[in-house]
C-alpha cells in the first residue's frame, strides 16, 4: 500500500503530508476533553493514517477529508468528548475562515497549512518564523495598541503575507504592512521611532548608555561605532551580499564575519620590512630612515602603522619579525635600553577600548633577539605605566626546536610561562617546518555552522552531512567572491581607510595585494556536529568517533581548497574560535526548535567554538590534547586552548615541559593556556 505523501490545501496547492500535524490536532481535541494522553494521541493518529492510506491510495486527500477522517476515528474509537471538541473547533475555524474570505476573498491559514513564513530581521542578524502571537504582543507592549486590536492586526498581517505567497519577507515589510493595517483601523500609534533605523529601541538604548567599565561613563564613540555597525550590517545583508548568502547568514547556516564593517579586512600582518620599505600605512617619506636609526623610533613607526592598519581590519593586527628587527638595532644596547624599547613597543601598539588587541610574535633565537623577547615579556607582566592588560598586544612566542636549546631561550619560555601563571594572555605558536610565510592579509571569513547541518541530516548520515557541507562551502565562496568584488570597488574609489592600503601611492607598491590575500572558511561546533552524527561528543567517543571528526575536517579542507580554485580565491580552512560566533549560531538554532535544543544542550549558551572538546568535559589534559591536536593538521589556523588550575601547573617548569611535549610529539598549530 502506498503511504499518503501529499495533502491538498484549500486553495488547491499540495504540500507534504505530516503525520505530526494530525497527532497535534488529535492531542488538542483530547486536551479540550480533559485528557493529556500523548500515547493515545499517537495511536489514534496512526489509525487515522492507516485509514487514509486505505481510502486514498490513488489520490491526494484534501484537508477537509483528513479532518472528516479524524472526526470519524475519534467517534469510532469511543472518544466522544474529544470528537465533540474537534467538531466544535472545526466549526469555529470554518466560521472564522468564511468571515475572512468574505473580506479578502482568499483562503486563510488552516490547521494543515504548514508553509513556514520566515521573517528576515537584518538588524538582529537572524531570521525567525513569523509568529502572529509575537507580533500581537509587541504591538500591544511596544506600540500601546489594545490587545484585541493587536490580535486582529497581527492576524490580518499574516493573511496579507500568506496571500502574497512569499516564503520569506524582510522585517521592514512586516513593519510597513502593520502600519497600514493600523491606519486602516484608524488606530493612532507612533511607530515612527520603532521604524527609524529598524534597530530595536532597546538595542539603541543599550548602545547609547553602555559603560566602558563598571561605574565609568558611557563612551559616545563606542556607541556611535556600535550603532554604525548595526546599520551597516543591515545594509550588507540586504544589499551587498548575494541573497542566498544573506539568507544563510540569517538562518544561522553560516556566519559572515565583519558585516558591521563590510569594507574592512579580517586580519593583517605587519612586518618591519613594511616600515623600512615605506609601504606601511601611516609612514611619511622620512619614516624608513627614522625607523632604522633606533629601537625607539622603530617602535613608534610600528605603533603608527598598527593604528592605521587597525582601523581597516576587524580582528587585530599581527606584528611579525619583531625580535629580529629590534635585535638588529640592539647590537650594543644596554639592558635598560632594550627594556625601554620593549616597553615603548607595547605602549605604541596598545589597542583602543573596544578594539581587538594586536599580537606580537616573539622568536627567541638566541642573542639580542632572545633578550628583546624576554624584555617584552617582563614589561608585559609588570605593566608599569602601560594601559590595561586587555588592550596590550598579546605576546605570541614562536617555538621551534631551538626554543628549548640554549639556556637563554629556555629563560624566555619560563618568563612566558610565568606570565601565564600570573593570568596574562600569552600564545605559543609552533613552527615545525621551515618558517611559514602565510599571506599578510586575511581578507574575510565565513564560518560554517556544523551542528545545524548535522542536525538536519540526522544520526549516522556522515555522507549526507558532507554533502550539506558542500552546499555551505559553495555559499561561503559566493559570499567571498561578492566581498572581493566590493573591496576592489573600494580600492578604485577615492578616500576611505582602505583605498590607500589597496592602491599604494607616490610610486610605492600597495601595502595590501588583494589577489594574494586569503579568504578563510571557518568551522565551529565540530564537537556538537559529531555528537549529532555519532551520538557521542568528541571526548566521549572511541576511535571511530574521532575518525568521523578527522574525516570531516580533512574533507572540508580539500573541499574548501577546491572550491577556492574554482572561483580563483585563495582559501584556507580554519577553526573559528570566536565564542561570540558560537553563541550566535547556538541562539539561532535554539530559536528554531526551543524544546529539542534545550533538551540536547542543557545549561549551555553556545556551541563549543572551533574544533575543541567541550570546555566542561570531564577529561584530563592529555585526553583533550589527543582528541584535538590531530585535527590541526588539516587546518590552517587553530589553537589548542588548555584551561588549567595554577596548582596543576606547579611552576613555569611544568608548563615548559608540556610545551616541549606538544612541540615534539603532536601537531598542534598553536596553544593558549588559560589559568582559572
Amino acid at each position, binding site marked *: 500500500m502506498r503511504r499518503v505523501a501529499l495533502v491538498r490545501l484549500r486553495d488547491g496547492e499540495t504540500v507534504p503530508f505530516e503525520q505530526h500535524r494530525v497527532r497535534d490536532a488529535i492531542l488538542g481535541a483530547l486536551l479540550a476533553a480533559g485528557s493529556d494522553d500523548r500515547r493515545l494521541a499517537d495511536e489514534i493518529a496512526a489509525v487515522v493514517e492507516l485509514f487514509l492510506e486505505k481510502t486514498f491510495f490513488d489520490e491526494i486527500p484534501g484537508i477537509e477529508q483528513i479532518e472528516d477522517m479524524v472526526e470519524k476515528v475519534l467517534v469510532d474509537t469511543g472518544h466522544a468528548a474529544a470528537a465533540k471538541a474537534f467538531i466544535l473547533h472545526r466549526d469555529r475555524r470554518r466560521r472564522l475562515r468564511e468571515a475572512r474570505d468574505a473580506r479578502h476573498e482568499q483562503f486563510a491559514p488552516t490547521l494543515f497549512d504548514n508553509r513556514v513564513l520566515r521573517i528576515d530581521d537584518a538588524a538582529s542578524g537572524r531570521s525567525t518564523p513569523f509568529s502572529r502571537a509575537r507580533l500581537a504582543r509587541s504591538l500591544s507592549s511596544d506600540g500601546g495598541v489594545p490587545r484585541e486590536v493587536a490580535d486582529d492586526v497581527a492576524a490580518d498581517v499574516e493573511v496579507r503575507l500568506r496571500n502574497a505567497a512569499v516564503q520569506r519577507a524582510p522585517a521592514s515589510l512586516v513593519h510597513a504592512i502593520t502600519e497600514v493595517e493600523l491606519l486602516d483601523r484608524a488606530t493612532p500609534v507612533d511607530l515612527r521611532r520603532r521604524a527609524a533605523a529598524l534597530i530595536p529601541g532597546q538595542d539603541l538604548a543599550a548602545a547609547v548608555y553602555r559603560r566602558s567599565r563598571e561605574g565609568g561613563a558611557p563612551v559616545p564613540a563606542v556607541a556611535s561605532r556600535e550603532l554604525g555597525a548595526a546599520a551597516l550590517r543591515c545594509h550588507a545583508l540586504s544589499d551587498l551580499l548575494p541573497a542566498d548568502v544573506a539568507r544563510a547568514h540569517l538562518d544561522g547556516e553560516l556566519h559572515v564575519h565583519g558585516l558591521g564593517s563590510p569594507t574592512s579586512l579580517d586580519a593583517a600582518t605587519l612586518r618591519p620590512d613594511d616600515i623600512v620599505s615605506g609601504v606601511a600605512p601611516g609612514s611619511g617619506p622620512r619614516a624608513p630612515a627614522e625607523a632604522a636609526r633606533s629601537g625607539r623610533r622603530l617602535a613608534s613607526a610600528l605603533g603608527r602603522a598598527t593604528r592605521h592598519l587597525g582601523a581597516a581590519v576587524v580582528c587585530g593586527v599581527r606584528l611579525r619579525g619583531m625580535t629580529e628587527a629590534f635585535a638588529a638595532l640592539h647590537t650594543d644596547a644596554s639592558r635598560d635600553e632594550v627594556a625601554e624599547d620593549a616597553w615603548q613597543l607595547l605602549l605604541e601598539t596598545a589597542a583602543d577600548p573596544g578594539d581587538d588587541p594586536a599580537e606580537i610574535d616573539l622568536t627567541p633565537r638566541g642573542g639580542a633577539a632572545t633578550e628583546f623577547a624576554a624584555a617584552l615579556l617582563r614589561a608585559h607582566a609588570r605593566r608599569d605605566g602601560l594601559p590595561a592588560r586587555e588592550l596590550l598586544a598579546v605576546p605570541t612566542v614562536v617555538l621551534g626546536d631551538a626554543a628549548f636549546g640554549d639556556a637563554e631561550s629556555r*629563560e624566555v619560555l*619560563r618568563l612566558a610561562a*610565568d606570565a601565564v601563571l*600570573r593570568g596574562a594572555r600569552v600564545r605559543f605558536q609552533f613552527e615545525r617546518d621551515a618558517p611559514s610565510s602565510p599571506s599578510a592579509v586575511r581578507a574575510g571569513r565565513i564560518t560554517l555552522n556544523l551542528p545545524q547541518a548535522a542536525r538536519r541530516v540526522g544520526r549516522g548520515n556522515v555522507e549526507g552531512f558532507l554533502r550539506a557541507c558542500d552546499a555551505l562551502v559553495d555559499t561561503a565562496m559566493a559570499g567571498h567572491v561578492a566581498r572581493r568584488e566590493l573591496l576592489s570597488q573600494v580600492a578604485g574609489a577615492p578616500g576611505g581607510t582602505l583605498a590607500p592600503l589597496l592602491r599604494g601611492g607616490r610610486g610605492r607598491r600597495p601595502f595590501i595585494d588583494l589577489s594574494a590575500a586569503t579568504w578563510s572558511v571557518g568551522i565551529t561546533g565540530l564537537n556538537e556536529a559529531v555528537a549529532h552524527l555519532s551520538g557521542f561528543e568528541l571526548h566521549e567517543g572511541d576511535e571511530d568517533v574521532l575518525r568521523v571528526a578527522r574525516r570531516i575536517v580533512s574533507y572540508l579542507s580539500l573541499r574548501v581548497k577546491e572550491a577556492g580554485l574554482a572561483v580563483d580565491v585563495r582559501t584556507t580552512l580554519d577553526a573559528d574560535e570566536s565564542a561570540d560566533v558560537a553563541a550566535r549560531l547556538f541562539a539561532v538554532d535554539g530559536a528554531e526548535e526551543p524544546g529539542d535544543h534545550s533538551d540536547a544542550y542543557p545549561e549551555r549558551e553556545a556551541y563549543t567554538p572551533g574544533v575543541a572538546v567541550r570546555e566542561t568535559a570531564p577529561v584530563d589534559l592529555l585526553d583533550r590534547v589527543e582528541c584535538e591536536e590531530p585535527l590541526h593538521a588539516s587546518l590552517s589556523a587553530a589553537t589548542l586552548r588548555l584551561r588549567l588550575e595554577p*596548582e596543576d601547573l*606547579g*611552576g613555569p*617548569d*611544568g608548563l615548559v*615541559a608540556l610545551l616541549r611535549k606538544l612541540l615534539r610529539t603532536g601537531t598542534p598549530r598553536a596553544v593558549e593556556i588559560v589559568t582559572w
Partner: protein
Amino acid sequence: MVRRPPPPPPLRGLESVSLTAWEGRVAAVLQLQGCNFKCPACVVPHLVPQVFEGGTIPLESALDTLYRRRRWLDGVVIAGGEPTLHEGLRDLVRVVRELGLRVRLHTNGSNPDALRAVVESGEVSSVAMTIRAPLDPTYAVAVGARVRLAAVYESVEILLRAPGEHEFRVPWLPQVVETEQMVSVIRMLAGARRVVLEPAPDGSPGRRALQQVGRTAGAYVDSCVLAGRPAQDFGARGRSRSVPS
C-alpha cells in the same frame, strides 16, 4: 626451592597526567597503598593504612593506560604511601621501564635498604625524598610515628652519593618545623643538588618567610626553590644566574 616472585604492590590510584609531580616533566603518578608514618599534615591519609578494604586498581589496567599515553609522557612517578615498603617495587619499576618510560620514586626515607637496592639497580632515574624535620626528637612529632633517625640519615647519604637526579622536599609544619628548623634541615643536606621548600597546603608561612629560608640556607645546596612558584633559585648554582623577579 624455587623462590616465588613477590606480589605486585597494591595500586590505589593513578593520576594519568601531572605537571607537578616531577618538576619539568610531563608525568603520570602511580599511588601505592600503605605507609609506616602517620604525618599530621599528610595530604593523602587514605593511602596510609596498609590494607584498604575497597580494593585496588588492577596493575594491568594502569599499565595499559600508561602504554596508551606513553608518547605524551616523560616518565612515571611512583609515590605512596611509602613505596619502599613493598617487596614488589623493583618489579614494578622494571615493567614501567619496559614501557620506555623513566621512573621517579617518592619516598619518606625510612627504608634505606630498599632505597639502596632500587637506586643501585640504576632503573630509577630520579628520587624525591621528603625530610619532615631536623634529625632530632621533633621528627617523631612531624611524622606521627616512631622513627629510626639513623635510617633517614642513611637514606639521605645514599641519595647524596648516588650519581642520579634527586630532590629533597622540606615542608613547613606549624609549631614543629618552623622556618628555623627548615634552615637546619637544609644545612644537613649540604651538597644536595636540589631542595624544594614546601609551604603548608594553605600557603603558610607565606612566600616571604620561605624566601628568607632560601636566602639564609640556600647556598649550602646547588639549587633551592619554592614549590610551585615562578622560578626563583636560592641555591649556589641558581644565584649565579639572572633571575626574574
